[in-house]
């Protein structure tokens, strides 16, 4: 969408050598060819969430396309295998981006009345990147997962 608004022919844009640089400028990202390791502070946000706790693997299921054709709308489903009782439930699931201008994408809160700790939605990804998910459990433990998503056309904005 931003292509048209910028008043530029999309094909010429994609072909132009400066397109990548212009796109990063448009996204307000630091220039240079650093595609993956642009720091948006996601690691600090994760550290803050965990508060020094060591996250465990597993039981955290993240369903995402391996290749997202359109970064503007990438479908996701995240679920945690949990009995969702008063004493043992998932309190929250955090979704963070490692390559968008802003690290935090969304926080989803659950209660025992949810019955199932699962959520589906659609997210924006500015570029190929890892998606980080953190689940906070009622007993104070955490689960964490990371998934690579390849993005063909970046979602401007993220």
């Amino acid at each position, binding site marked *: 969408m931003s292509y048209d608004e910028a008043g530029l022919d999309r094909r010429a844009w994609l072909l132009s050598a400066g397109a990548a640089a212009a796109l990063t400028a448009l996204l307000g990202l630091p220039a240079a060819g650093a595609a993956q390791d642009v720091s948006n502070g996601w690691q600090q946000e994760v550290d803050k969430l965990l508060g020094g706790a060591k996250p465990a693997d597993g039981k955290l299921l993240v369903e995402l396309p391996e290749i997202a054709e359109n970064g503007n709308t990438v479908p996701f489903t995240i679920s945690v295998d949990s009995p969702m009782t008063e004493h043992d439930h998932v309190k929250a699931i955090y979704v963070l981006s490692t390559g968008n201008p802003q690290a935090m994408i969304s926080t989803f809160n659950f209660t025992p009345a949810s019955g199932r700790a699962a*959520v589906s939605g659609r997210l*924006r990804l500015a570029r190929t990147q890892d998606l980080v998910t953190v689940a906070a459990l009622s007993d104070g433990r955490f689960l964490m997962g990371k998934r690579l998503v390849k993005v063909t056309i970046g979602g401007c904005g993220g």
Partner: protein
Amino acid sequence: MSMSKPRIKVPEKIKAGDVVEIKTLISHVMETGNRRDKDGKIIPRNIIHTFTATFEGKPVFKADMQAGISANPYLAFYVRVPASGNLEMTWVDDLGMKMVETVKLTVA
């Protein structure tokens, strides 16, 4: 109008104690605040930042959304239905616009 009446899908047949999926879709631009207009000015952020769902007044699900959520946000979540009751859902955006919808979940 920056927010239109949402579409909500709930299962027709529910047995007492079932955990059912609720699907919601609402029209909204979800402007990220990172884009610029033709004059190079930043287009102010306007997203639905909060979605909440309560069943019979009890919190069930809440989403705190940032710019990384797509336009026209689709959200699907679950609720445990011990008996028939009302599921109330609220969307709030950066301009303070608020949409409230209630659907009845009927246990057969």
